[in-house]
C-alpha cells in the first residue's frame, strides 16, 4: 500500500535517524510522569520524522502525533530499537501505519525493557559499579574513570547503533538480538557473581580487637579467626544480611538500619573495632 503523495524528498535519511537518536537519548524520560510515562518523550523523539512525512497535511500530522503520544514505557537503553522499527514502518506504509505502530510499540516495550534492565541495568551496573567501589573505598578514582569510559565506549555506541540496525533489519533484529542479549546476560552473570564474591574480602572491613593476655602468653583472636578462614567475619556478616533480606517484612532500608545499630552495639561490646 503506497501513499500516492509520497515524494522522493520525504525519504528518511541518515541525518533524520541521528536526530531521532539524539532526541531519544536526551529526552526519553525527561517528562516521565505517572499518567503515560514516556509518551511525550517518544513523541518528541520521533517528531522530526512525523514532520517530514506528514507536515504538509495538518490532519494527518495531528492524527499521527496523537497515535505516538500514547502510554509508553521501556528501558531508555533499548528504546532506539523501537524507534528504528517504527520509522521503517511509517516510511513504507505512510498514514496507514497508525494502525500498526501502537501494537508494535506496546508489544515490544515490555520484552525490551526486561532485556535492557537485566543487561544494562543490573549486570553492567554490577560489574562496573563493583570495580568502581573496590577502588574508591581505597581512595582511588581509577574505577570511576573506567566505568565512565566503559559507558562512553560501549553503552552509548550500542544505543546509537541500534536505531540503524532496527531501521535496516526490521523486526527480525529483535528476535536475533533478544536471543543474543539473553545469552550474553547469562554469561555476564558469571562474571558479575565472581566479582561480587571478590568484593566480600575487598570492601568489607570488620576485625575483632580482642587480645587475651595471661602472663607471657598472648592470643590475638583475629589471628585465630584468620587461621580458620581469612575474612571470616565479613563472610558471616554477608550471610546474616543475606538471610535478613529473605525474611518477611524486611527490606533493604531496614537491613541498613539493623547493620548500623549492630555496628554500634558490637563496638560498645568491644567485639568489633
Amino acid at each position, binding site marked *: 500500500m503506497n501513499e500516492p503523495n509520497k515524494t522522493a524528498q520525504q525519504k528518511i535519511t541518515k541525518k533524520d535517524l541521528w536526530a531521532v537518536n539524539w532526541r531519544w537519548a536526551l529526552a526519553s524520560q525527561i517528562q516521565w510522569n505517572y499518567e*503515560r510515562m514516556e509518551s511525550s518523550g517518544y513523541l518528541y523523539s520521533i517528531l522530526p520524522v512525523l514532520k517530514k512525512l506528514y507536515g504538509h497535511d495538518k490532519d494527518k500530522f495531528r492524527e499521527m502525533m496523537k497515535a505516538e503520544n500514547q502510554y509508553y514505557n521501556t528501558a531508555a537503553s533499548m528504546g532506539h530499537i523501537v524507534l528504528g522499527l517504527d520509522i521503517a514502518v511509517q516510511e513504507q506504509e505512510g498514514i496507514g501505519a497508525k494502525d500498526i505502530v501502537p501494537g508494535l510499540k506496546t508489544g515490544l516495550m515490555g520484552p525490551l525493557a526486561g532485556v535492557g534492565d537485566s543487561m544494562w*541495568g543490573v549486570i553492567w551496573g554490577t560489574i562496573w559499579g563493583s570495580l568502581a567501589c573496590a577502588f574508591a573505598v581505597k581512595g582511588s578514582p581509577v574505577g570511576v574513570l573506567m566505568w565512565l569510559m566503559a559507558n562512553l565506549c560501549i553503552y552509548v555506541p550500542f544505543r546509537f547503533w541500534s536505531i540503524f540496525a532496527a531501521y535496516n533489519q526490521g523486526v527480525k533484529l529483535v528476535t536475533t538480538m533478544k536471543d543474543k542479549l539473553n545469552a550474553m546476560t547469562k554469561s555476564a552473570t558469571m*562474571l*558479575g*557473581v565472581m566479582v561480587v564474591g571478590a568484593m566480600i574480602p575487598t570492601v568489607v572491613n570488620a576485625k575483632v580487637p580482642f587480645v587475651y593476655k595471661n602472663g607471657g602468653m598472648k592470643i590475638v583472636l583475629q589471628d585465630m579467626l584468620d587461621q580458620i578462614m581469612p575474612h571470616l567475619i565479613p563472610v558471616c556478616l*554477608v550471610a546474616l544480611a543475606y538471610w535478613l533480606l529473605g525474611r518477611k517484612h524486611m527490606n533493604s532500608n531496614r537491613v*541498613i538500619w539493623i547493620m548500623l545499630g549492630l555496628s554500634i552495639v558490637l563496638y560498645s561490646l568491644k567485639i568489633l573495632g
Partner: protein
Amino acid sequence: MSQGIAIWQIALLTLYAFFSINESLMLNLGFIRPVFAGAITGAIMGDLKLGLMVGGTMELMQLGISAFGGASIPDFFLGAVVGTTFGILAGKGVQFAIGVGVPVGLLMLQLDILARFANTALLHRVDKAVEAVAPRKIEMWTLMGSVFWGLSRALPVLIILSFGQPVVNTLLQIMPDWLMGGLKVAGGVLPVVGISILLRYLPTKDFVPELLVGFVLAAYLNVPILGVTLVGLAAAVYDFKKHGKDREAAAVTAPAATASDEGGFQGDE
C-alpha cells in the same frame, strides 16, 4: 571545630545535583551514582580521596537496590553529597562522613515522586499542543520536565548545605565515643548490605562455584579486583562461545530451523 562552606561551593554542588539527575535520564553515563557524587563533591570541597571513600561505601549500599526492593529506595546520591561535604568541613574523616550521609540517604526517600507528579501537568500541555498541531510547543513542554527533575535534587542539596551546618556542629559537640566508634565500625560493615542485595538479586544459587572462585581469588590469593574481573571475563566469554555453538547445533538439527538462517543448508531442494 568545623570551618564554613563557601557560597561558590554550595552553588557548584547545587548545579551538579540539577545536572546529574537530568543526565541520568539522558545518556546515563553515571554522574548520578553515589561513587561519582562522592568523587565530584570531594573534588569541589578539596578532598577527592575522602569523597571517593564515602561515595564508594554509599555505592555499595545502592548497587542493585533499585532492582531489589519494591519498597522505598534511599537516595544515596544525596547521602554521598551531604556526607562528603560535612565530613570534609568537620575534618573528622570518612567514618563521620558516612555517619552523616547514610541517615540522610535513608531519610530522603524517592524525591523522584515529586518530579513524576509535577510532570503530569506538563503532559496535559503537550496534549493541547498536539491538538493545535504546534510542534514547537510540544517540544518546549516536553523538555520543561527537566526543570522539575533538576529541582527534585538541587533544592534538597541547596537547603541542606546552606542550613545544615549548625546541626552538624551540634552533632560534633555531643557525639559520644560509642557513637563515633560505632560509626567507624559501620563504615566497614555497611557494604555487606549491597553485596547481599546483589546476591539476592542475581541468580546466585545457579552460580555458587563462580562465587567461591571469586572469593578465593581475592581472600586467599590476594588477587586485586581487576584481576578477578579478568578471570570472570575469561569464564564469561568461554561460556558465551560454548553456548553459541550449542545454539547453532540445535538450529541445524532442529527440523523447524528457518530457511532464512544464513549458512544453514536447505535440505529439500
